[in-house]
């Protein structure tokens, strides 16, 4: 397709959609009486409900069904796919990596975000300092991965370095290091990318929470002689606990589904694959539909308790 044809498609799609919606609204508005009411309800709800039913509900149920069938969905295999995930060597590595990702990323990103929020709070450069940490949130994970791949770039020690980290190693007299290739630490260096992206989110939410702590509490604590790190531990952290939980769970959910970073930085090689990436590989590269479905269902099962907890905490936050 040429550029012109693509824009024609773009305009057709948007114009057609808006024209149809407008026409339907006008017609629904014209029909009065009891029938009109029903027609209006249908017009407002049905398109979205239909798309959700066909695009989320049916495929979700279908995937759960497929996870109990073999690679080509020709026969029922019971729990075999799930058994593979929990016994096969390569799959166990995937599970191990996913566990490391989900344990390390939220904690470190939240911790860095919190410390930074407190450090720069009410400083002269607060707004600017915040934007610096926050900017990575706006860019794609593919872009973030490229940025860090360049930081990790490896050249043999005797050569001129172009990666910043290996240059630093060389400066202190250590041999250069293959950050993305050397197991098992390469997973940690991928996690750094996710922390780099998510810390800004943690910082923004927690900064707002800190500013919202009622002054009476702090004054009272001060009168009782509480100060310093004890103030931080006994007043600041408990006061922002709901926000802390929301931040931790939100980053956990994002981390559990991390795909772009692994694919761009290592392609899942060198024992760096995670659940969401392995799902992609099994489904679209190895064409093992059953195993891919089981991996997707596993992500689903793991994400449910975190999401439920997250939503409940968020509603509590909103209610305040």
């Amino acid at each position, binding site marked *: 397709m040429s550029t012109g044809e693509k824009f024609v498609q773009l305009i057709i799609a948007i114009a057609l959609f808006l024209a149809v919606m407008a026409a339907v609204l006008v017609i629904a508005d014209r029909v009065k009486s009891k029938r009109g009411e029903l027609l209006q309800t249908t017009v407002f709800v049905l398109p979205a409900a239909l798309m959700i039913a066909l695009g989320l509900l049916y495929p979700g149920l279908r995937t759960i069904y497929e996870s109990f069938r073999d690679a080509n969905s020709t026969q029922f295999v019971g729990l075999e796919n799930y058994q593979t995930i929990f016994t096969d060597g390569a799959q166990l590595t995937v599970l191990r990596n996913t566990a490391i990702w989900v344990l390390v990323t939220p904690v470190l990103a939240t911790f860095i975000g919190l410390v930074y929020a407190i450090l720069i709070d009410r400083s002269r450069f607060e707004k600017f300092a915040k934007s610096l940490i926050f900017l990575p949130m706006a860019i794609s994970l593919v872009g973030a991965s490229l940025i860090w791949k360049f930081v990790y770039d490896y050249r043999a020690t005797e050569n001129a370095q172009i990666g910043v980290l290996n240059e630093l190693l060389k400066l202190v007299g250590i041999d250069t290091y293959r950050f993305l290739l050397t197991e098992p630490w390469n997973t940690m260096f991928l996690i750094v990318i996710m922390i780099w992206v998510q810390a800004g989110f943690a910082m923004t939410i927690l900064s707002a929470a800190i*500013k919202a702590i009622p002054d009476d509490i702090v004054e009272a604590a001060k009168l009782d002689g509480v100060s310093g790190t004890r103030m931080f531990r006994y007043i600041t952290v408990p006061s922002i606990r709901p926000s802390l939980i929301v931040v931790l769970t939100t980053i956990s959910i994002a981390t559990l589904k991390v795909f*772009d970073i692994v694919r761009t930085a290592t392609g899942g090689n060198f024992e760096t694959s995670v659940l969401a990436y392995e799902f992609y590989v099994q489904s679209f590269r190895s064409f093992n539909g059953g195993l891919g479905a089981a991996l997707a269902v596993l992500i689903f099962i793991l994400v449910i308790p975190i999401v439920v907890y997250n939503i409940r905490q968020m509603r509590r936050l909103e209610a305040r």
Partner: protein
Amino acid sequence: MTTTTPAPAVPSKKQQRANAAAESAHQKLSSPWASFAAIVIAVVWTVPTLGLFISSFRPEDDVKGSGWWTWFTNPSFTLDNYSAVLSGSDTDLATYFINSIVITLPSVVIPITLATMAAYAFAWMKFPGRDLLFVAVFAMQIVPIQVTMIPLLSLYVTPPFGLPSLAGSEAFGGGFYTIWLSHSIFALPLAIYLLHNFMKEIPAELVEAARVDGAGHVRIFTRIMLPLMTPSIAALGIFQFLWVWNDLLVALVFGGGNLDISPLTVRLAELSGTRGQDWHLLSAGAFVSLVVPLIVFLSLQRYFVRGLLAGSVKG
């Protein structure tokens, strides 16, 4: 939030109160070490991007032969990398840039429109099964998109009832419809839920008064709700825009590896694999893809922060 109010010369009582907690925590950590820590964090968060940015303006030999930090002592400048990635026959990012635009706009307009209408129905229309349906939509938020992908893809490739296939370059619309529809579907549950919450905050008297005056739902929706909802819709729209523009997985799966309709992210990820050492191209390519979200983000930051909590649960 007190943070958004401009600071007056003399801080108000309220501001003093709100800031006291932060102040005391701040004081405890305000040692030289604390400042040092803040600077280290700021540097680690900035230098990686700066390095790639500088490299994108250095000639190929410089990028490959020396670290970007030598640029400060030995400056050089060229736009060759950008012209190479944008129009070079082997990278041709200009085409993918257009694909990203073509993918993103309908993927924002369609779900936000449908979600606004559905949210209105759930908030202000009375129909049997309304609450049950709303809870069902709400619950769909927890479905990871991975769980839906393969069955959804088969629906596109071989739709039931003899409908024409939507996938592949021969299909109606050149294959874009699969990506547009997928992004729209995935955006709906969260968008409906959030817009419903916002609409519920509008006083019921306003809607009831309009009903008494004989206005139908369509009129109330277009004349009252849409103008009142504009800030919320804008916030959600920006989020959806960034989400679609930065997406890799949906485009990979539903684009079916068809480079003719792939967005920038797919192309960049591929270049990172095949041209992994050509940092003069990768650096410029990365910034071609970053420029749009950065502009959107910087110019609409206040909406962004507002919708932040809500938007990041998605996907």
